[in-house]
């Protein structure tokens, strides 16, 4: 009984306090934090309840014993999996590209040593540094050359990289127009377009 009261009081404090605290106190926790704290307090309350719970006597039948063990397993693993699924999630790249398999092939080509983009360019965390980081190239491309669309600029970068040389980099990127098949170029373009 006392435990329930304490738990309720603490949870109330978690939700009321931020209303009273001013924005610039630097102590105001956002809603997500409050939800996390609430879950934590509930867990702590449960734990303290368990400390006082009356003793359990041995199970009478084997099925009951095995059943309770099974229940522990399902409950524990279920709770953990549930918790992981309500935690913040980033969008899966697999999802983004299941429809556009052209982009997937483009990514593969990008990281193919035979093609070699990744030797000079980084995407996300992997790749070389002789060329600009392309993690957000589709966004960057919008403002590179006034009048050129993102797609056209990226095309130009592949066919005649010398037409516009990104500041602080050398004009060392080879033109790829005749090195790759039209299919490959299309796929790589699709991949670059997805790097927003």
């Amino acid at each position, binding site marked *: 009984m006392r435990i329930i009261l304490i738990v309720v009081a603490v949870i109330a404090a978690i939700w009321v306090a931020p209303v009273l605290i001013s*924005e610039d*106190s*630097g*102590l*105001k*926790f*956002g*809603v*997500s*934090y409050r939800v*996390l704290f609430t879950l*934590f307090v509930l867990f*702590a309350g449960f*734990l*303290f309840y*368990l*400390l006082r*719970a009356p*003793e*359990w*006597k*041995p*199970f009478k039948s*084997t099925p009951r*014993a*095995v059943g*309770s*063990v099974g229940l*522990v*397993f399902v409950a*524990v*693993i*279920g709770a*953990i*999996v549930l*918790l*992981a*699924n309500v*935690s*913040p*999630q*980033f969008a*899966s*790249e*697999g*999802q983004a*590209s*299941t429809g556009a*398999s052209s982009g*997937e092939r483009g*990514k*593969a080509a990008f*990281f*193919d*040593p035979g093609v070699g983009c*990744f030797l000079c360019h980084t*995407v*996300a*965390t*992997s790749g070389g540094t002789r060329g600009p980081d392309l993690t957000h190239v589709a966004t960057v491309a919008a403002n590179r050359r006034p009048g050129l669309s993102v797609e056209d600029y990226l095309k130009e970068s592949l066919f005649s990289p010398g037409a516009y040389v990104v500041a602080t980099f050398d004009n060392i990127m080879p033109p790829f127009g005749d090195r790759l098949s039209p299919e490959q170029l299309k796929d790589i373009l699709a991949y670059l377009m997805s790097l927003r």
Partner: protein
Amino acid sequence: MPPDVPLINDRLVLWVVAELHLLFAAFVLGAPIFIVICEYLGLKTRDERYERLAKETMKIVAIAYSLTALFGGAMTFVLVGKYQEFSNFIFQRFYPIFGLYALLLLAESGLMYVYWYTWDALAGRKRWHISIGVLLNVLGTLVMFLMNGVGSFMLTPPDSPATATVWQSLNNATWTGLNLHRFVANISFGGFMVALFAALMFLTSKKEDDRAFYDWMGYIGNFIGVAALVVLPVAGYIYTKEIFAYDATISTLLMADKLAWFFVMQGILVGFLFLGAVYYMWLSIQRIEGGARFRTYIRGAIWACLVGLAVWLVPQSFLPSLTAEPSGPISEVTIPEKTIFLGLMPAKGLAVSAIVVVTAFVYFLYRQAIATGKMAWGRIDVKAQLVLTFLPAVAVFTMAFMGPIREMARGQWHIFQFMPDKTPYSFITPLGYTAIVAGAITIIFFLLMGAIFWLGFKVGHQKETT
């Protein structure tokens, strides 16, 4: 909802098979360490229960051994069949190592049979038998070290991986850390698994004598499991230090980017392990004469653990990755200015240390209680036995969950910054999906383990008693 990756794909198949191989391998490596320790304790204390415990557990190891090999074989098939470029390179690069591995494995399994079949024959010469057991463990550990070399090479290869010597490749930047971490974790895991068998036997036993024995066995399993668990954060710290020293972009990925929330999850899991261990001691100390007087301290320890865990879990932000856009105002999802220190490494380190120290303290109290009071074996709250099933469930899930973190730390690489992963699945899976896969693997593992246990323990046992 997360399962946004087609259900059966090459990576998932490899993932499940590799993880099951690893879990069984961890068991057949960890349990024999446990067994030899028990055999030794049996010799030292002249307490016959140790001998029985060691022998009953060894039966299970023998069966689990073949499943380890089975999944290892399956893993090789998938690798060679579906990841040719990679396996070609790895098998060539480590050719002498794989040769040595095969030889040691052969020797190890031979020795395992010798150990098992000479148990009664060498009953009069216990020291000889224990020496065989120790040698068995040395070989097993060497086998693991060799494969750790290959695994750690993928994340932290030496400069110019194609031309480095075999030794440089094996002894790469994180080999020591991984060896240490897995070695300690296996002991802990072995202990918890033994505690699980004991709990199952306790719960299904009808006789007082049996219950007394299995209560004791669960206590020993948990005792060794917790002893190793307490050291594990140190080993983990050394291992991550090595990774961070190798390449700072990996540390960003792990601690501040896509994998950051995976570590919040890991904190919860490890917190469960420690709290579970302390709760077991809380429940079981009352079967020691005069043990109840220690309970106030244990309650205090639980408070301390909870505070530590709370600090450990406070995240820097609720953003799933560095580049994620918050849907509302940013102040809602990031840590308030004056409490930023709570989200930083020193606070986390302090929190983990507090949990470790406090658990060690309770452990010490428990030993103290045993030294001063008489133990009523078997008179234990059944909840404590359920805790002994809870602990391995969490431990196995944690292992199945940490595995993908280690693998995905490589980002889009098979071999970091050397051989890119060109399959469509070279991306980091979201937290929820990862947890679902880990959960499924955990369940499969325990179903298989359950079958083995039934074969080795229950069936064998019925024969002995009838």
